[in-house]
C-alpha cells in the first residue's frame, strides 16, 4: 500500500573526498514501522541517517517525508530548519545541553524553535520526560544523571518536537552494559505506541524482537533487507553471514 509510506529515500549517494561512503542507498519506511539498520563499522550507517535529516548534505538522491521533499525549495536556512525538526535524532553520545536541566533540555526546542510560552513549553517537556519515566529527575543537570538517564532525556528532547519519525544512531553504544536495557525498553515502548523509527544498532536482540524490518548495510550499500527472521535465520549475502557469525552466540 503506497499511501502509508512515510519516508522515501531514493538513491542517496555521499562521498567524503575521494571516498564513496553511500552508493545510491534507497530505503522506504512506512508509517508506524520500526526499521533497524545493522552493518559493520564504516559501512555508512551513521552517514545515511545524517543525510536523512540533512545534518549531512547528500551529493545525490532525493528524500521525501510525507508530502515534504527534504532539502527541496525554498532552499533557505529557515525551511531546512523547519524540515529538520520533522525528524527526531538521537545521538550515540546523547549530546544533551550540559548547562540546562533535564526539563530545560527538553523544553528548549518547544520554547525557542516553536515559540511556545514558557509555561506551555515546560508543560510539554514534563509530559515527554514522563513518557521516558524521568519526571523525578526533571531538575537535574545532565552531569548528575546516569548515561541511560541522559539518553532517555535525549529521547524526550526529540519527542518534544513531535517529530514524524525518530532516527537513532547507536543509542546504546556509549552506555555501560547495565544501562542499556532501560533505553531499549523506552524505545520498545515508543515503537509499541506507533512511533516511526529508524534505528542503527548493534543490539541484535532489539533488531530481532522489536524491528519490523532489518536492513543490512555493507560498503555504502544496502546489501540485504527483510524481516528479522529472514535476515537472521536465512541470510543470503555472504557479508551478512560473516557479520552474524562474528556476533555473540546470544543472538
Amino acid at each position, binding site marked *: 500500500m503506497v499511501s502509508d509510506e512515510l519516508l522515501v529515500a531514493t538513491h542517496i549517494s555521499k562521498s567524503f573526498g575521494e571516498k564513496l561512503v553511500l552508493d545510491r542507498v534507497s530505503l522506504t519506511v512506512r508509517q508506524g514501522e520500526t526499521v533497524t539498520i545493522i552493518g559493520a563499522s564504516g559501512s555508512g550507517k551513521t552517514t545515511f541517517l545524517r543525510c536523512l*535529516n540533512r*545534518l549531512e548534505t547528500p551529493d545525490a538522491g532525493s528524500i521525501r517525508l510525507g508530502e515534504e521533499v527534504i532539502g527541496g525549495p525554498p532552499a533557505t*536556512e*529557515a525551511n531546512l*530548519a*523547519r524540515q*529538520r*525538526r520533522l*525528524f*527526531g*535524532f538521537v*545521538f550515540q*553520545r546523547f*549530546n*544533551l*545541553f*550540559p*548547562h540546562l536541566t533535564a526539563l530545560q533540555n527538553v523544553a*528548549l*526546542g518547544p520554547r*525557542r*524553535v516553536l515559540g511556545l510560552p514558557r509555561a506551555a513549553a515546560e508543560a510539554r517537556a514534563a509530559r515527554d520526560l514522563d513518557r521516558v519515566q524521568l519526571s523525578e529527575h526533571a531538575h537535574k*543537570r*545532565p*552531569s548528575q544523571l546516569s548515561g541511560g538517564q541522559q539518553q532517555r532525556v*535525549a529521547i524526550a*528532547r*526529540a519527542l*518534544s*518536537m513531535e517529530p514524524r519519525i525518530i532516527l537513532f544512531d547507536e543509542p546504546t553504544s556509549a552506555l555501560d552494559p547495565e544501562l542499556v536495557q532501560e533505553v531499549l525498553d523506552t524505545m520498545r515502548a515508543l515503537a509499541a505506541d506507533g512511533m516511526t523509527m529508524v534505528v542503527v544498532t548493534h543490539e541484535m536482540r532489539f533488531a530481532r524482537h522489536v524491528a519490523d524490518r532489518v536492513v543490512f548495510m555493507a560498503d555504502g550499500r544496502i546489501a540485504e533487507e527483510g524481516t528479522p527472521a529472514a535476515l537472521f535465520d536465512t541470510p543470503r549475502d555472504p557479508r551478512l553471514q560473516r557479520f552474524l557469525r562474528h556476533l555473540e552466540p546470544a543472538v
Partner: protein
Amino acid sequence: MEFDWSVVRYAAPLLAAGIVMTLKVSVVACVLGLVLGLAAGLASLSSSRVLRFLVRAYVDFIRGTPLLIQIFLVFFALPVVGVRLPEFWAGVAALAINSGAYIAEITRGAVGGVERGQTEAALSIGMTQRGVLWWVLLPQAWRPMIPALTNDLITLTKNSSLLSAISVYELTRAGQAVISTHFAPFEIYLLLALYYYLLITALSFASRRIERALPTW
C-alpha cells in the same frame, strides 16, 4: 647615589591620585572593549563573508602593530578626518579598540571550542544557526572565557601606562611630572612599579574570586 626618601614621601600621595585616573581609563576602556570585542567576535562567527573579512582585517591590524602607534593614530590621525577627541577619550578609544581585537579572538575561540555535537543536537531540533549560537553555544562559551578575559583586563590596565605619551594624566604621567621637577627617576619609577604591582595584584585576586564563584555544570 643616595636613595631619596623625601621625594618618595612627597610623591606617594600625589601619585595615588594618578591611580584613580588609571582605574578610570581602564574601567571605561574595558567596558567599551568588551562590547566591541563581543560584537566583533559574534560577527566573525556569522555567515556573512564580508563581516568575517572585516573582523579578520581588524584583528590582524591590531595584532600586527604596536599599541603605542595605535594610540598615536587615534590621537593624531583621527583629527585629520575630522574626529577630534580629548586626550582622555582618545586614550580610552585606543585601548578599547586594542583589547576589542583580542576579546574578539577569545569569543571566537570559546564558541568554536564548544563540542560539535552541541551544534548538531540543536540543529536536529530545528534551530537555525543564529538560534544555535544564541541558545546553545554562547551560554556554554562565556564561562571558559572568564580567565582569558580577566587576563586581558590586566593587560589593558598595564597598557594604560602608554597613554602618558598623549598626556593623559594617569599614574605614569603623574610620575613623570614629579620626575621633571625633582630629578629622581629611580625613586619615582620604583614607586610607580610598586603602585602598578599592587593594582594588578588586587585585580588578579578579584578575578580569581569571581572565577571561583561562577557556576559550573
